[in-house]
Protein backbone atom coordinates (compact mmCIF):
# COMPACT_ATOMS: atom_id res chain seq x y z
CA UNK A 1 0.00 0.00 0.00
CA UNK A 2 2.77 2.40 0.97
CA UNK A 3 4.50 2.02 -2.37
CA UNK A 4 1.31 1.75 -4.34
CA UNK A 5 0.00 5.20 -3.42
CA UNK A 6 3.00 7.16 -4.74
CA UNK A 7 3.01 4.97 -7.83
CA UNK A 8 -0.65 5.62 -8.52
CA UNK A 9 -0.16 9.35 -7.96
CA UNK A 10 2.93 9.47 -10.19
CA UNK A 11 1.01 7.69 -12.89
CA UNK A 12 -1.91 10.08 -12.44
CA UNK A 13 0.42 13.08 -12.73
CA UNK A 14 1.66 11.95 -16.13
CA UNK A 15 -1.79 10.80 -17.25
CA UNK A 16 -3.45 14.10 -16.35
CA UNK A 17 -0.77 16.11 -18.19
CA UNK A 18 -1.16 13.83 -21.21
CA UNK A 19 -4.93 14.27 -21.05
CA UNK A 20 -4.90 18.01 -21.53
CA UNK A 21 -2.03 18.00 -24.04
CA UNK A 22 -3.60 15.23 -26.10
CA UNK A 23 -7.15 16.53 -26.14
CA UNK A 24 -5.94 19.60 -28.02
CA UNK A 25 -3.99 17.45 -30.44
CA UNK A 26 -6.97 15.14 -30.94
CA UNK A 27 -9.34 18.03 -31.65
CA UNK A 28 -6.98 19.50 -34.24
CA UNK A 29 -6.41 16.09 -35.75
CA UNK A 30 -10.03 15.01 -35.68
CA UNK A 31 -11.35 18.30 -37.02
CA UNK A 32 -8.79 19.34 -39.59
CA UNK A 33 -6.87 16.13 -40.16
CA UNK A 34 -3.79 18.19 -39.37
CA UNK A 35 -0.99 16.54 -37.50
CA UNK A 36 0.36 19.48 -35.56
CA UNK A 37 4.06 18.87 -34.94
CA UNK A 38 4.31 22.29 -33.30
CA UNK A 39 1.90 21.21 -30.56
CA UNK A 40 4.79 20.47 -28.20
CA UNK A 41 6.08 24.01 -28.62
CA UNK A 42 2.86 25.36 -27.09
CA UNK A 43 3.76 23.42 -23.94
CA UNK A 44 7.13 25.15 -24.07
CA UNK A 45 5.47 28.51 -24.67
CA UNK A 46 3.28 27.93 -21.60
CA UNK A 47 6.27 27.00 -19.44
CA UNK A 48 8.24 30.04 -20.57
CA UNK A 49 5.25 32.29 -19.91
CA UNK A 50 5.62 31.16 -16.30
CA UNK A 51 9.40 31.77 -16.44
CA UNK A 52 8.86 35.29 -17.77
CA UNK A 53 6.13 36.15 -15.28
CA UNK A 54 8.13 34.87 -12.32
CA UNK A 55 11.19 36.78 -13.57
CA UNK A 56 9.28 40.05 -13.20
CA UNK A 57 7.88 39.05 -9.83
CA UNK A 58 4.49 37.75 -10.95
CA UNK A 59 2.86 34.73 -9.34
CA UNK A 60 2.25 31.19 -10.54
CA UNK A 61 -1.49 31.90 -10.55
CA UNK A 62 -1.10 34.83 -12.89
CA UNK A 63 0.84 32.57 -15.27
CA UNK A 64 -1.87 29.93 -15.02
CA UNK A 65 -4.27 32.54 -16.41
CA UNK A 66 -1.88 34.24 -18.82
CA UNK A 67 -0.34 31.15 -20.48
CA UNK A 68 -3.55 29.86 -22.07
CA UNK A 69 -4.22 33.37 -23.34
CA UNK A 70 -0.72 33.59 -24.84
CA UNK A 71 -1.10 30.08 -26.32
CA UNK A 72 -4.51 30.97 -27.74
CA UNK A 73 -3.25 34.18 -29.34
CA UNK A 74 -0.16 32.61 -30.91
CA UNK A 75 -2.16 29.55 -32.01
CA UNK A 76 -4.85 31.73 -33.56
CA UNK A 77 -2.31 33.84 -35.44
CA UNK A 78 -0.41 30.82 -36.76
CA UNK A 79 -3.62 29.12 -37.86
CA UNK A 80 -4.76 32.19 -39.76
CA UNK A 81 -1.42 32.76 -41.48
CA UNK A 82 0.02 29.30 -42.13
CA UNK A 83 -1.92 26.26 -41.00
CA UNK A 84 -5.07 27.27 -42.88
CA UNK A 85 -3.16 26.82 -46.14
CA UNK A 86 -2.30 23.17 -45.61
CA UNK A 87 -5.57 21.54 -44.54
CA UNK A 88 -5.95 19.59 -47.74
CA UNK A 89 -2.58 17.89 -47.58
CA UNK A 90 -1.56 16.03 -44.39
CA UNK A 91 2.08 15.81 -45.46
CA UNK A 92 2.24 19.55 -46.08
CA UNK A 93 0.74 20.08 -42.65
CA UNK A 94 3.46 17.95 -41.11
CA UNK A 95 6.23 19.86 -42.88
CA UNK A 96 4.82 23.31 -42.11
CA UNK A 97 4.16 22.62 -38.45
CA UNK A 98 7.57 20.97 -38.12
CA UNK A 99 9.16 24.08 -39.63
CA UNK A 100 7.22 26.20 -37.14
CA UNK A 101 8.39 23.99 -34.32
CA UNK A 102 12.07 24.44 -35.26
CA UNK A 103 11.65 28.20 -35.49
CA UNK A 104 9.75 28.56 -32.20
CA UNK A 105 12.40 26.52 -30.37
CA UNK A 106 15.20 28.77 -31.60
CA UNK A 107 13.32 31.99 -30.96
CA UNK A 108 12.63 30.91 -27.38
CA UNK A 109 16.27 29.96 -26.95
CA UNK A 110 17.41 33.29 -28.36
CA UNK A 111 15.20 35.18 -25.90
CA UNK A 112 15.80 33.11 -22.76
CA UNK A 113 19.24 31.57 -23.40
CA UNK A 114 20.20 27.91 -23.59
CA UNK A 115 20.54 27.23 -19.84
CA UNK A 116 17.62 25.29 -18.28
CA UNK A 117 15.28 27.52 -16.28
CA UNK A 118 13.95 26.67 -12.83
CA UNK A 119 10.55 27.82 -11.67
CA UNK A 120 8.77 27.29 -8.39
CA UNK A 121 5.23 26.08 -8.02
CA UNK A 122 2.83 26.78 -5.17
CA UNK A 123 2.25 24.33 -2.27
CA UNK A 124 5.88 23.50 -1.43
CA UNK A 125 5.01 21.01 1.34
CA UNK A 126 4.11 17.36 1.47
CA UNK A 127 0.82 15.64 2.23
CA UNK A 128 0.65 12.27 3.93
CA UNK A 129 -1.66 9.83 2.19
CA UNK A 130 -2.05 6.30 3.53
CA UNK A 131 1.31 6.55 5.27
CA UNK A 132 3.19 7.93 2.27
CA UNK A 133 4.48 11.49 1.89
CA UNK A 134 3.54 13.04 -1.41
CA UNK A 135 4.34 16.53 -2.77
CA UNK A 136 1.29 18.74 -2.35
CA UNK A 137 1.91 20.48 -5.66
CA UNK A 138 1.52 17.23 -7.59
CA UNK A 139 -1.80 16.59 -5.88
CA UNK A 140 -2.90 20.07 -6.91
CA UNK A 141 -1.70 19.38 -10.47
CA UNK A 142 -3.71 16.16 -10.71
CA UNK A 143 -6.84 17.77 -9.32
CA UNK A 144 -6.54 20.87 -11.46
CA UNK A 145 -5.75 19.01 -14.70
CA UNK A 146 -8.62 16.57 -14.19
CA UNK A 147 -11.02 19.48 -13.56
CA UNK A 148 -9.80 21.13 -16.75
CA UNK A 149 -10.43 17.88 -18.60
CA UNK A 150 -13.95 17.65 -17.19
CA UNK A 151 -14.44 21.30 -18.10
CA UNK A 152 -13.40 20.57 -21.68
CA UNK A 153 -15.87 17.67 -21.86
CA UNK A 154 -18.67 19.92 -20.59
CA UNK A 155 -17.69 22.60 -23.09
CA UNK A 156 -17.86 19.97 -25.79
CA UNK A 157 -21.23 18.60 -24.76
CA UNK A 158 -23.04 21.73 -23.63
CA UNK A 159 -21.76 24.84 -25.35
CA UNK A 160 -22.56 26.20 -28.77
CA UNK A 161 -18.82 26.07 -29.60
CA UNK A 162 -18.72 22.40 -28.64
CA UNK A 163 -21.80 21.58 -30.69
CA UNK A 164 -20.40 23.34 -33.77
CA UNK A 165 -17.08 21.63 -33.23
CA UNK A 166 -18.59 18.15 -32.96
CA UNK A 167 -20.74 18.77 -36.00
CA UNK A 168 -17.69 19.89 -37.98
CA UNK A 169 -15.69 16.83 -36.91
CA UNK A 170 -18.50 14.62 -38.18
CA UNK A 171 -18.78 16.39 -41.50
CA UNK A 172 -17.49 19.79 -42.48
CA UNK A 173 -19.95 19.98 -45.36
CA UNK A 174 -22.96 19.18 -43.19
CA UNK A 175 -21.85 21.65 -40.55
CA UNK A 176 -21.47 24.45 -43.06
CA UNK A 177 -24.92 23.70 -44.44
CA UNK A 178 -26.19 24.10 -40.87
CA UNK A 179 -24.60 27.54 -40.75
CA UNK A 180 -21.34 26.74 -38.95
CA UNK A 181 -18.53 28.96 -40.19
CA UNK A 182 -15.82 26.39 -40.91
CA UNK A 183 -12.94 28.90 -41.07
CA UNK A 184 -13.86 30.37 -37.71
CA UNK A 185 -14.39 27.03 -35.98
CA UNK A 186 -11.06 25.70 -37.32
CA UNK A 187 -9.13 28.74 -36.10
CA UNK A 188 -10.86 28.64 -32.71
CA UNK A 189 -10.25 24.92 -32.31
CA UNK A 190 -6.58 25.19 -33.24
CA UNK A 191 -6.11 28.09 -30.83
CA UNK A 192 -8.08 26.26 -28.13
CA UNK A 193 -5.80 23.21 -28.46
CA UNK A 194 -2.76 25.49 -28.26
CA UNK A 195 -4.16 27.16 -25.13
CA UNK A 196 -4.64 23.78 -23.42
CA UNK A 197 -1.06 22.76 -24.28
CA UNK A 198 0.23 26.06 -22.88
CA UNK A 199 -1.77 25.42 -19.69
CA UNK A 200 -0.15 21.99 -19.44
CA UNK A 201 3.23 23.71 -19.86
CA UNK A 202 2.64 25.91 -16.80
CA UNK A 203 1.55 22.91 -14.71
CA UNK A 204 4.55 20.90 -15.86
CA UNK A 205 7.19 23.60 -15.45
CA UNK A 206 7.78 23.34 -11.67
CA UNK A 207 8.43 19.58 -12.03
CA UNK A 208 11.05 19.72 -14.74
CA UNK A 209 13.94 21.64 -16.25
CA UNK A 210 12.39 24.21 -18.52
CA UNK A 211 14.23 24.29 -21.85
CA UNK A 212 13.33 25.30 -25.37
CA UNK A 213 13.24 21.61 -26.34
CA UNK A 214 10.99 20.33 -23.53
CA UNK A 215 7.94 20.02 -25.79
CA UNK A 216 9.20 17.31 -28.11
CA UNK A 217 8.96 14.42 -25.63
CA UNK A 218 5.37 15.27 -24.81
CA UNK A 219 4.61 15.65 -28.50
CA UNK A 220 5.63 12.05 -29.23
CA UNK A 221 3.75 10.71 -26.21
CA UNK A 222 0.58 12.59 -26.96
CA UNK A 223 0.64 11.44 -30.57
CA UNK A 224 0.72 7.90 -29.37
CA UNK A 225 -2.10 8.69 -26.97
CA UNK A 226 -4.18 9.84 -29.92
CA UNK A 227 -3.12 6.97 -32.18
CA UNK A 228 -3.55 4.26 -29.57
CA UNK A 229 -6.74 5.71 -28.13
CA UNK A 230 -8.35 6.58 -31.45
CA UNK A 231 -8.50 9.97 -33.10
CA UNK A 232 -11.45 12.26 -32.66
CA UNK A 233 -13.02 10.84 -29.51
CA UNK A 234 -12.72 12.01 -25.91
CA UNK A 235 -12.99 8.52 -24.51
CA UNK A 236 -10.18 7.52 -26.88
CA UNK A 237 -7.96 10.26 -25.49
CA UNK A 238 -8.77 9.17 -21.93
CA UNK A 239 -8.01 5.51 -22.73
CA UNK A 240 -4.81 6.39 -24.60
CA UNK A 241 -3.56 8.67 -21.81
CA UNK A 242 -4.27 5.97 -19.25
CA UNK A 243 -2.39 3.32 -21.20
CA UNK A 244 0.62 5.42 -22.22
CA UNK A 245 0.97 7.29 -18.91
CA UNK A 246 0.24 4.28 -16.71
CA UNK A 247 2.62 1.95 -18.53
CA UNK A 248 5.45 4.43 -18.69
CA UNK A 249 5.22 5.13 -14.96
CA UNK A 250 4.98 1.44 -14.10
CA UNK A 251 7.95 0.52 -16.28
CA UNK A 252 10.10 3.39 -15.03
CA UNK A 253 10.08 1.76 -11.57
CA UNK A 254 11.84 -1.28 -13.02
CA UNK A 255 14.09 0.10 -15.75
CA UNK A 256 15.72 3.43 -16.66
CA UNK A 257 13.20 6.10 -17.62
CA UNK A 258 14.49 6.49 -21.18
CA UNK A 259 14.21 2.78 -21.84
CA UNK A 260 10.71 2.77 -20.30
CA UNK A 261 9.65 5.54 -22.64
CA UNK A 262 11.13 3.65 -25.58
CA UNK A 263 9.31 0.44 -24.60
CA UNK A 264 5.98 2.22 -24.33
CA UNK A 265 6.36 3.72 -27.78
CA UNK A 266 7.33 0.30 -29.18
CA UNK A 267 4.27 -1.21 -27.56
CA UNK A 268 2.15 1.52 -29.14
CA UNK A 269 3.53 0.55 -32.55
CA UNK A 270 2.57 -3.06 -31.86
CA UNK A 271 -0.95 -2.01 -30.86
CA UNK A 272 -1.26 -0.10 -34.13
CA UNK A 273 -0.64 -3.33 -36.03
CA UNK A 274 -3.79 -4.85 -34.60
CA UNK A 275 -5.94 -1.76 -34.03
CA UNK A 276 -4.85 0.64 -36.77
CA UNK A 277 -7.73 2.98 -35.91
CA UNK A 278 -7.04 2.98 -32.19
CA UNK A 279 -8.69 1.24 -29.27
CA UNK A 280 -11.76 3.47 -29.15
CA UNK A 281 -12.21 5.07 -32.56
CA UNK A 282 -14.87 7.76 -32.87
Amino acid at each position, binding site marked *: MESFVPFALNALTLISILLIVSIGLAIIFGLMNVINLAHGEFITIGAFTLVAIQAVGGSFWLALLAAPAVGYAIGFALEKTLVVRVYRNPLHAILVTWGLSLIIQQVIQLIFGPAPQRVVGPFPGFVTIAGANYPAYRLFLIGFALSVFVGVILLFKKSRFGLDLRASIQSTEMASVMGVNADRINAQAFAFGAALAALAGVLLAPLTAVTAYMGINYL*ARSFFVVLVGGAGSISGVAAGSGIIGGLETALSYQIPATVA*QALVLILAIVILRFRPRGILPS
Partner: protein
Amino acid sequence: MKAAISQGRSATPATRRGLRPTTLVAIATLVVLAALPLFAKSYALTSYRDVLLLAVFALSLDIFWGRTGILSFGHATFFGLGAYGMAVVAIHFEIDPAWVSLAGLLFGVGLAAAVATLVGYFILYGGVRGAYFTIVTLALTLIAHHVAVGWSDVTGGDSGLIGVPPITLFGYAFIGSTESYYLALAVLTVALFGSMRLLHGRLGLVLAAIRDSETKARTLGYRTDRTLLLTFVASASLAALAGAVYAAGTGFVAPDFIALLLSTEVIIWVAVGGSGTLIGPVIGTAIVWKLQQEISSISIAAWPIALGSFFILLVLVFPQGLPAYLLKKVRALRSGKGAAP
Protein backbone atom coordinates in the same frame (compact mmCIF):
# COMPACT_ATOMS: atom_id res chain seq x y z
CA MET B 1 3.05 15.95 -50.63
CA LYS B 2 2.94 13.83 -53.69
CA ALA B 3 6.47 12.82 -54.35
CA ALA B 4 7.66 15.77 -56.30
CA ILE B 5 8.89 15.76 -59.82
CA SER B 6 9.69 12.52 -61.45
CA GLN B 7 11.60 12.32 -64.66
CA GLY B 8 10.23 10.44 -67.59
CA ARG B 9 6.56 11.01 -66.96
CA SER B 10 6.23 13.60 -69.62
CA ALA B 11 9.22 12.35 -71.55
CA THR B 12 8.75 11.58 -75.23
CA PRO B 13 9.00 7.98 -76.37
CA ALA B 14 12.44 8.64 -77.83
CA THR B 15 14.04 9.69 -74.55
CA ARG B 16 12.30 6.86 -72.77
CA ARG B 17 14.12 4.33 -74.86
CA GLY B 18 17.48 6.12 -74.71
CA LEU B 19 19.27 7.41 -71.63
CA ARG B 20 17.09 9.38 -69.29
CA PRO B 21 18.14 12.98 -68.57
CA THR B 22 18.70 12.09 -64.92
CA THR B 23 21.05 9.30 -65.91
CA LEU B 24 23.11 11.77 -67.93
CA VAL B 25 23.18 14.19 -65.00
CA ALA B 26 24.23 11.32 -62.73
CA ILE B 27 27.11 10.31 -65.01
CA ALA B 28 28.28 13.93 -65.35
CA THR B 29 28.13 14.43 -61.59
CA LEU B 30 30.13 11.29 -60.88
CA VAL B 31 32.79 12.26 -63.44
CA VAL B 32 33.21 15.64 -61.76
CA LEU B 33 33.39 13.98 -58.36
CA ALA B 34 36.01 11.51 -59.60
CA ALA B 35 38.21 14.37 -60.80
CA LEU B 36 37.77 16.43 -57.63
CA PRO B 37 40.83 15.05 -55.71
CA LEU B 38 43.08 16.45 -58.46
CA PHE B 39 42.08 19.96 -57.46
CA ALA B 40 41.04 19.80 -53.81
CA LYS B 41 43.33 20.04 -50.79
CA SER B 42 43.69 17.00 -48.59
CA TYR B 43 41.81 18.43 -45.58
CA ALA B 44 38.94 19.55 -47.81
CA LEU B 45 38.72 16.04 -49.24
CA THR B 46 37.73 14.57 -45.88
CA SER B 47 34.81 17.03 -45.76
CA TYR B 48 33.84 16.11 -49.30
CA ARG B 49 34.03 12.44 -48.36
CA ASP B 50 31.53 13.08 -45.56
CA VAL B 51 29.26 14.92 -47.98
CA LEU B 52 29.36 11.96 -50.39
CA LEU B 53 28.26 9.61 -47.62
CA LEU B 54 25.52 11.98 -46.52
CA ALA B 55 24.46 12.01 -50.17
CA VAL B 56 24.16 8.22 -50.06
CA PHE B 57 22.00 8.72 -46.97
CA ALA B 58 19.80 11.20 -48.88
CA LEU B 59 19.58 8.74 -51.77
CA SER B 60 18.38 6.06 -49.36
CA LEU B 61 15.50 8.28 -48.23
CA ASP B 62 14.63 9.12 -51.83
CA ILE B 63 14.33 5.43 -52.70
CA PHE B 64 11.46 5.17 -50.23
CA TRP B 65 9.90 8.63 -50.05
CA GLY B 66 10.45 9.60 -53.68
CA ARG B 67 8.91 6.43 -55.02
CA THR B 68 6.18 5.55 -52.56
CA GLY B 69 5.20 9.08 -51.58
CA ILE B 70 5.35 7.98 -47.93
CA LEU B 71 7.67 10.21 -45.91
CA SER B 72 9.88 8.59 -43.30
CA PHE B 73 10.82 10.98 -40.50
CA GLY B 74 12.97 8.26 -38.98
CA HIS B 75 15.77 7.79 -41.43
CA ALA B 76 18.41 9.14 -39.05
CA THR B 77 17.60 6.08 -36.93
CA PHE B 78 18.96 3.82 -39.64
CA PHE B 79 21.96 6.01 -40.44
CA GLY B 80 22.68 6.09 -36.70
CA LEU B 81 22.23 2.34 -36.25
CA GLY B 82 24.76 1.77 -39.03
CA ALA B 83 27.22 4.19 -37.45
CA TYR B 84 26.75 2.90 -33.90
CA GLY B 85 26.81 -0.71 -35.11
CA MET B 86 30.18 -0.09 -36.71
CA ALA B 87 31.54 1.73 -33.64
CA VAL B 88 30.29 -0.80 -31.10
CA VAL B 89 31.78 -3.74 -32.99
CA ALA B 90 35.11 -1.93 -33.44
CA ILE B 91 35.40 -0.75 -29.84
CA HIS B 92 33.69 -3.35 -27.67
CA PHE B 93 34.66 -6.55 -29.46
CA GLU B 94 38.17 -7.78 -30.01
CA ILE B 95 38.13 -8.70 -33.65
CA ASP B 96 41.09 -9.23 -35.95
CA PRO B 97 41.83 -5.74 -37.39
CA ALA B 98 41.75 -7.22 -40.90
CA TRP B 99 38.10 -8.21 -40.46
CA VAL B 100 36.74 -5.67 -38.02
CA SER B 101 35.47 -3.30 -40.74
CA LEU B 102 33.56 -6.01 -42.51
CA ALA B 103 32.10 -7.25 -39.22
CA GLY B 104 31.12 -3.68 -38.31
CA LEU B 105 29.49 -3.05 -41.67
CA LEU B 106 27.54 -6.28 -41.50
CA PHE B 107 26.48 -5.68 -37.92
CA GLY B 108 25.43 -2.06 -38.51
CA VAL B 109 23.52 -2.76 -41.69
CA GLY B 110 22.02 -5.94 -40.24
CA LEU B 111 20.85 -4.07 -37.15
CA ALA B 112 19.16 -1.38 -39.23
CA ALA B 113 17.58 -3.96 -41.53
CA ALA B 114 16.23 -5.86 -38.52
CA VAL B 115 14.75 -2.74 -36.91
CA ALA B 116 13.27 -1.61 -40.23
CA THR B 117 11.76 -5.05 -40.80
CA LEU B 118 10.19 -5.15 -37.34
CA VAL B 119 8.86 -1.60 -37.28
CA GLY B 120 7.94 -1.76 -40.95
CA TYR B 121 6.07 -5.00 -40.47
CA PHE B 122 4.01 -3.70 -37.60
CA ILE B 123 3.05 -0.41 -39.17
CA LEU B 124 2.94 -1.22 -42.89
CA TYR B 125 1.06 -4.50 -42.43
CA GLY B 126 -1.15 -2.70 -39.90
CA GLY B 127 -2.24 -0.42 -42.73
CA VAL B 128 -0.45 2.65 -41.33
CA ARG B 129 0.24 4.97 -44.26
CA GLY B 130 0.76 8.60 -45.13
CA ALA B 131 0.95 11.06 -42.29
CA TYR B 132 0.57 8.35 -39.63
CA PHE B 133 3.63 6.60 -40.98
CA THR B 134 5.55 9.85 -40.79
CA ILE B 135 4.85 10.45 -37.12
CA VAL B 136 5.44 6.85 -36.09
CA THR B 137 8.86 7.00 -37.73
CA LEU B 138 9.43 10.37 -36.08
CA ALA B 139 8.84 8.71 -32.73
CA LEU B 140 11.23 5.95 -33.75
CA THR B 141 14.06 8.48 -34.06
CA LEU B 142 13.17 9.90 -30.65
CA ILE B 143 13.32 6.42 -29.13
CA ALA B 144 16.62 5.63 -30.82
CA HIS B 145 18.09 8.94 -29.63
CA HIS B 146 16.97 8.23 -26.06
CA VAL B 147 18.59 4.83 -26.18
CA ALA B 148 21.82 6.25 -27.65
CA VAL B 149 22.02 8.82 -24.86
CA GLY B 150 20.73 6.61 -22.05
CA TRP B 151 22.55 3.30 -22.64
CA SER B 152 25.98 4.77 -21.98
CA ASP B 153 27.76 1.45 -21.19
CA VAL B 154 27.43 0.52 -24.82
CA THR B 155 26.92 3.77 -26.69
CA GLY B 156 29.09 6.10 -24.65
CA GLY B 157 26.06 8.24 -23.76
CA ASP B 158 26.23 11.93 -24.56
CA SER B 159 29.88 11.88 -25.57
CA GLY B 160 29.53 8.92 -27.94
CA LEU B 161 32.35 6.57 -28.90
CA ILE B 162 35.78 7.58 -30.18
CA GLY B 163 38.34 5.43 -31.97
CA VAL B 164 36.50 3.80 -34.83
CA PRO B 165 39.23 2.54 -37.18
CA PRO B 166 39.17 3.40 -40.89
CA ILE B 167 37.62 0.87 -43.25
CA THR B 168 39.92 -2.06 -43.97
CA LEU B 169 38.82 -4.53 -46.62
CA PHE B 170 40.74 -7.67 -47.53
CA GLY B 171 43.94 -6.30 -46.08
CA TYR B 172 43.69 -2.85 -47.70
CA ALA B 173 43.16 0.07 -45.34
CA PHE B 174 41.46 3.22 -46.65
CA ILE B 175 43.46 5.50 -44.36
CA GLY B 176 44.48 8.52 -46.41
CA SER B 177 41.99 11.23 -47.32
CA THR B 178 42.19 10.40 -51.03
CA GLU B 179 41.68 6.68 -50.46
CA SER B 180 38.70 7.17 -48.17
CA TYR B 181 37.25 9.76 -50.57
CA TYR B 182 37.34 7.26 -53.42
CA LEU B 183 35.84 4.60 -51.17
CA ALA B 184 32.91 6.92 -50.45
CA LEU B 185 32.61 7.73 -54.14
CA ALA B 186 32.54 4.01 -54.95
CA VAL B 187 29.74 3.46 -52.43
CA LEU B 188 27.80 6.36 -53.94
CA THR B 189 28.33 5.16 -57.51
CA VAL B 190 27.21 1.61 -56.78
CA ALA B 191 24.24 2.80 -54.73
CA LEU B 192 23.17 5.32 -57.36
CA PHE B 193 23.38 3.04 -60.38
CA GLY B 194 22.00 0.09 -58.43
CA SER B 195 18.93 2.05 -57.36
CA MET B 196 18.50 3.58 -60.83
CA ARG B 197 18.59 0.15 -62.43
CA LEU B 198 16.03 -1.19 -59.96
CA LEU B 199 13.68 1.76 -59.91
CA HIS B 200 13.72 2.50 -63.62
CA GLY B 201 12.47 -1.03 -64.13
CA ARG B 202 9.32 -2.83 -63.18
CA LEU B 203 9.76 -2.23 -59.43
CA GLY B 204 9.70 1.52 -59.99
CA LEU B 205 6.53 1.17 -62.01
CA VAL B 206 4.85 -0.92 -59.32
CA LEU B 207 5.88 1.54 -56.59
CA ALA B 208 4.47 4.43 -58.62
CA ALA B 209 1.27 2.43 -59.04
CA ILE B 210 1.04 1.85 -55.28
CA ARG B 211 1.58 5.57 -54.70
CA ASP B 212 -1.26 6.42 -57.07
CA SER B 213 -3.72 3.86 -55.71
CA GLU B 214 -2.71 1.11 -53.36
CA THR B 215 -6.20 -0.45 -53.40
CA LYS B 216 -6.11 -0.74 -57.17
CA ALA B 217 -2.62 -2.24 -57.10
CA ARG B 218 -3.89 -4.85 -54.67
CA THR B 219 -6.82 -5.79 -56.89
CA LEU B 220 -4.26 -6.33 -59.65
CA GLY B 221 -2.68 -8.97 -57.43
CA TYR B 222 0.25 -7.07 -55.93
CA ARG B 223 1.23 -7.80 -52.34
CA THR B 224 1.58 -4.10 -51.67
CA ASP B 225 2.40 -4.52 -47.97
CA ARG B 226 5.33 -6.71 -48.87
CA THR B 227 6.57 -4.46 -51.67
CA LEU B 228 6.48 -1.42 -49.40
CA LEU B 229 8.17 -3.30 -46.57
CA LEU B 230 10.98 -4.58 -48.80
CA THR B 231 11.54 -1.10 -50.21
CA PHE B 232 11.59 0.35 -46.70
CA VAL B 233 14.11 -2.25 -45.51
CA ALA B 234 16.33 -1.73 -48.58
CA SER B 235 16.20 2.02 -48.03
CA ALA B 236 17.03 1.62 -44.31
CA SER B 237 19.91 -0.74 -45.09
CA LEU B 238 21.45 1.75 -47.50
CA ALA B 239 21.11 4.51 -44.89
CA ALA B 240 22.91 2.25 -42.41
CA LEU B 241 25.69 1.50 -44.91
CA ALA B 242 26.21 5.25 -45.32
CA GLY B 243 26.24 5.66 -41.53
CA ALA B 244 28.73 2.84 -40.96
CA VAL B 245 31.22 4.10 -43.56
CA TYR B 246 30.71 7.65 -42.26
CA ALA B 247 31.60 6.59 -38.70
CA ALA B 248 34.72 4.80 -39.95
CA GLY B 249 35.71 7.96 -41.80
CA THR B 250 35.25 10.42 -38.95
CA GLY B 251 36.53 7.93 -36.37
CA PHE B 252 33.73 8.57 -33.87
CA VAL B 253 29.98 8.38 -33.31
CA ALA B 254 27.80 10.77 -31.32
CA PRO B 255 24.07 11.02 -30.48
CA ASP B 256 23.83 13.68 -33.24
CA PHE B 257 24.11 10.82 -35.74
CA ILE B 258 20.80 9.40 -34.58
CA ALA B 259 18.85 12.59 -33.86
CA LEU B 260 15.69 14.21 -35.12
CA LEU B 261 17.65 17.13 -36.56
CA LEU B 262 19.49 14.77 -38.92
CA SER B 263 16.18 13.17 -39.93
CA THR B 264 14.95 16.67 -40.66
CA GLU B 265 18.03 17.67 -42.63
CA VAL B 266 17.93 14.64 -44.88
CA ILE B 267 14.35 15.50 -45.86
CA ILE B 268 15.55 18.94 -46.92
CA TRP B 269 18.46 17.49 -48.92
CA VAL B 270 16.03 15.32 -50.85
CA ALA B 271 13.46 18.09 -51.29
CA VAL B 272 16.04 20.60 -52.54
CA GLY B 273 17.38 18.13 -55.08
CA GLY B 274 13.93 16.97 -56.12
CA SER B 275 12.44 13.83 -54.61
CA GLY B 276 12.03 10.86 -56.88
CA THR B 277 14.98 11.76 -59.12
CA LEU B 278 17.70 9.81 -57.22
CA ILE B 279 20.55 12.01 -58.52
CA GLY B 280 18.73 15.16 -57.35
CA PRO B 281 19.10 14.38 -53.65
CA VAL B 282 22.83 13.78 -54.18
CA ILE B 283 23.22 17.28 -55.60
CA GLY B 284 20.78 18.67 -53.03
CA THR B 285 22.96 17.33 -50.22
CA ALA B 286 25.99 19.16 -51.55
CA ILE B 287 24.10 22.43 -52.00
CA VAL B 288 22.48 22.36 -48.56
CA TRP B 289 25.74 21.29 -46.90
CA LYS B 290 27.47 24.32 -48.38
CA LEU B 291 24.59 26.56 -47.30
CA GLN B 292 24.74 25.11 -43.80
CA GLN B 293 28.46 25.97 -43.56
CA GLU B 294 27.69 29.57 -44.51
CA ILE B 295 24.60 30.03 -42.36
CA SER B 296 25.98 28.29 -39.26
CA SER B 297 28.95 30.64 -39.29
CA ILE B 298 26.54 33.52 -38.61
CA SER B 299 25.11 31.99 -35.42
CA ILE B 300 24.24 28.57 -34.07
CA ALA B 301 20.53 29.38 -33.96
CA ALA B 302 20.49 30.57 -37.57
CA TRP B 303 20.65 27.09 -39.10
CA PRO B 304 17.58 25.56 -37.39
CA ILE B 305 15.64 28.75 -38.15
CA ALA B 306 16.72 28.55 -41.80
CA LEU B 307 15.69 24.89 -41.87
CA GLY B 308 12.30 25.69 -40.36
CA SER B 309 11.72 28.52 -42.79
CA PHE B 310 12.71 26.26 -45.64
CA PHE B 311 10.09 23.67 -44.64
CA ILE B 312 7.42 26.36 -44.75
CA LEU B 313 8.67 27.72 -48.09
CA LEU B 314 8.82 24.22 -49.49
CA VAL B 315 5.12 23.74 -48.90
CA LEU B 316 3.81 27.20 -49.65
CA VAL B 317 6.02 28.27 -52.54
CA PHE B 318 7.36 25.18 -54.30
CA PRO B 319 5.35 22.12 -53.27
CA GLN B 320 6.58 20.19 -56.31
CA GLY B 321 10.21 20.47 -55.18
CA LEU B 322 12.83 23.09 -55.90
CA PRO B 323 14.04 21.77 -59.31
CA ALA B 324 10.49 21.52 -60.65
CA TYR B 325 9.86 25.06 -59.42
CA LEU B 326 12.99 26.41 -61.11
CA LEU B 327 12.28 24.45 -64.29
CA LYS B 328 8.81 25.97 -64.45
CA LYS B 329 10.21 29.47 -63.92
CA VAL B 330 12.77 28.96 -66.67
CA ARG B 331 10.12 27.63 -69.05
CA ALA B 332 7.81 30.52 -68.26
CA LEU B 333 10.65 32.94 -68.91
CA ARG B 334 11.46 31.29 -72.24
CA SER B 335 7.91 31.07 -73.48
CA GLY B 336 7.42 34.68 -72.35
CA LYS B 337 10.34 35.72 -74.57
CA GLY B 338 9.11 33.57 -77.43
CA ALA B 339 5.69 35.17 -77.32
CA ALA B 340 7.08 38.69 -77.31
CA PRO B 341 7.07 40.34 -80.75
